[in-house]
């Protein structure tokens, strides 16, 4: 891999985007790359839109991903995936959970949650891989593991072996959550291979 790989992770504050970013950063280092991971803390973690960047390659200068630069958008929530679409590089892939979380303007009735966003993204010619990461995580034992389920869903797009991803997940999650996260990762991988067979 000569060029820098850029993974943009997005979701709603509190969904576990930070851990997903740390796992991918760890996998990049294990794979012998230089990596930069940019997180956002503070106010936006309180249920707002959050975006985290992971960049890796032989040499990485800026930690930020700009519009038109992301190889992969890894999204925990459909509206956030659509919001970040301009960041996708030509030929990039959107991996998103099908979860929809109403933002406050929708809850309060001031705005509507746009419908059919996944198909609209596909209609632009973008490749979209989607699955219900929340259900996969719930089946694995905890909805908190939806971030790891999502990593499983996108596992073939990062340029890391599944073994490396697995090692990184195990080293980044707390001891007592290892079994649940292992199951969530496998659930994500299984959902991804189903997509391939379609």
């Amino acid at each position, binding site marked *: 891999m000569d060029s820098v790989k850029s993974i943009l992770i997005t979701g709603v504050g509190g969904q576990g985007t930070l851990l997903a970013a740390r796992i991918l950063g760890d996998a990049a280092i294990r794979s012998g790359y230089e990596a930069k991971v940019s997180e956002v803390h503070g106010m936006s973690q309180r249920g707002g839109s959050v975006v985290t960047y992971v960049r890796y390659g032989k040499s990485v200068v800026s930690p930020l991903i700009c519009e038109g630069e992301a190889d992969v958008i890894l999204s925990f929530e459909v509206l956030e995936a659509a919001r970040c679409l301009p960041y996708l590089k030509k030929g990039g892939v959107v991996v998103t959970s099908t979860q929809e979380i109403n933002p*406050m303007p929708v809850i309060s009735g001031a705005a509507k949650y746009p419908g059919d966003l996944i198909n609209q993204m596909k209609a632009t010619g973008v490749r979209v891989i989607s699955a219900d990461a929340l259900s996969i995580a719930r089946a694995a034992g905890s909805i908190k593991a939806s971030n790891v389920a999502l990593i499983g869903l996108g596992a073939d797009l990062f340029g890391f072996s599944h073994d490396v991803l697995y090692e990184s997940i195990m080293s980044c999650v707390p001891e007592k959550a290892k079994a649940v996260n292992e199951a969530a990762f496998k659930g994500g991988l299984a959902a991804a291979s189903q997509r391939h067979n379609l």
Partner: protein
Amino acid sequence: MKTKRLMLGNEAVARGLYEAGVRFVSSYPGTPSTEITEYAAKYDEIYAEWAPNEKVALEAAMGAAVGGARAFCAMKHVGLNVAADPLFVASYTGINAGLLIAVADDPGMHSSQNEQDSRHYARAAKIPMLEPSDSQECLDFVKLAYDLSEKFDIPFILRTSTRIAHSQSLTELGEREEKPILPYEKNPAKYVMIPANARGRHVSLEERLAALREYAETSPVNKIERASDNKIGIITAGVSYVYAKECFGDTASYLKLGLVNPLPERLIREFAASVERVIVIEELDPVIEEQVRAMGIACDGKNLLPVVGEYSSALLAERLLGKKPETVRLDVQMPPRPPVLCPGCPHRGVYYILKKLKLTVSGDIGCYTLGAVAPLASIDTTFCMGASVSSLHGRNIAIGDEKTSVAVIGDSTFVHSGITGLINMVYNGSKSTVLILDNRITGMTGHQQNPCTGLTLKEKPAPELSLERLCAAVGVDEEHIRVVDPNKLDELEKTIKEELDSPCVSVIICRRPCALLKYVAKKKPYSIDENKCRACRACMRIACPAISVSENGKAKIDDALCTGCGLCTQMCRFDAICE
């Protein structure tokens, strides 16, 4: 082989403190600086504490440094405003053992009320400032800062910004170099800043700065990188360097300044003379650019680039190279997703009642600032830490709004700087009502202990500051110090009404722990009985992210989000919300 690790900028700063033999750390939390002190607290060799505010923290660190121990203090940019008083005298007295102040700016205001540029403080307080551009430099610059601080007898500032503080990059770790406590010698001419002594110290300060300017000319942290041609020369520092490098690659030469105060004049002149066009690239204010222009050097900078907001390589490419990326966008109205009070947040009920009573609300800085967001939208003003109390006093003395206005302030913010405003209220005969939203933790910055929580930064037991007794001690009548559970809406409303009517200062302590605290047990989520729900939307008025409206107009509760706090059950007149 040396260990290399992916490290957050803030973690690398803490590692630098450890390796530099720092013994004493005192800080007040503030995004994006908070984790420095949290990581520092993990080293047994470092004493680390949360102070009630940044002024106390810096003064504590000054005391430790003058006493002979390497000392440190971290804060966010606006925290430096609070600590400005000691800052401006620290350059005069100088130090004994090294003293470093880390200040984290927040361009783009990810989590702040303004985007002030802390470099102005370095110039105004005459304190040298280092600015790293990745985690490795965070670690290296901290160690360098302590050596220089002791060599030049002056405190140093390390300036970071959100993208440096909260980005991880590979960092090589070293060993701790144990620094013995330096002997303290009584020296009033140096440390007692009465005018007669301060006059001498100002002269000394100018001499020390002159020596630092000379050092800057050859400092290894001010680096020139040459391109193959001499068309463009970029003068830059900190995170702006990585954006510039990403944008221009090796098509430009760079003068990367690690020391941003004082600037190396000869080096800048030499660099500028070696290229056809000089561009100064710096986020926020034209601090370097104005000094470069004052040297008589023609350059581009803020004529092409904004003083507002965060930079990126894309912004530079667009403004300086006229390049725009190819993008895909949906032609869809996307509702924004502003941050909101969490499900189960104890502040939610307070704002519902304040809105219901149509009160003017003097707000403050913390999670509870989110009460300003629709539909709760009940905050009238938010200025800075502590201003809720002091500005309400001014309002009410001036226009007599006591019956229809309150201040809201968090527990940690009240201790930080709300207490002085309350003293002013009592002393000057205010009849105002102050609500302390006591959620038993410093919330927005990510759960830091404070004097009210009974635990120190290192999780050791500490005397628990009683807000009731504190308010009584400053003269609030004990009958008008009320404690309520903010999730009991009727009681809360009744208490607020009673105290608005009182002829003196009142304090209502709304006490309920943050729903995100580990010891706060999540209860079974509630659900909607569709047969009972009349689709009246009364439950929507508390703006809980767990409650939304189904397609049939009836309420629904997201069981993944609901914490079972039960606030919504008090909104429903039809008993449709059940366990």
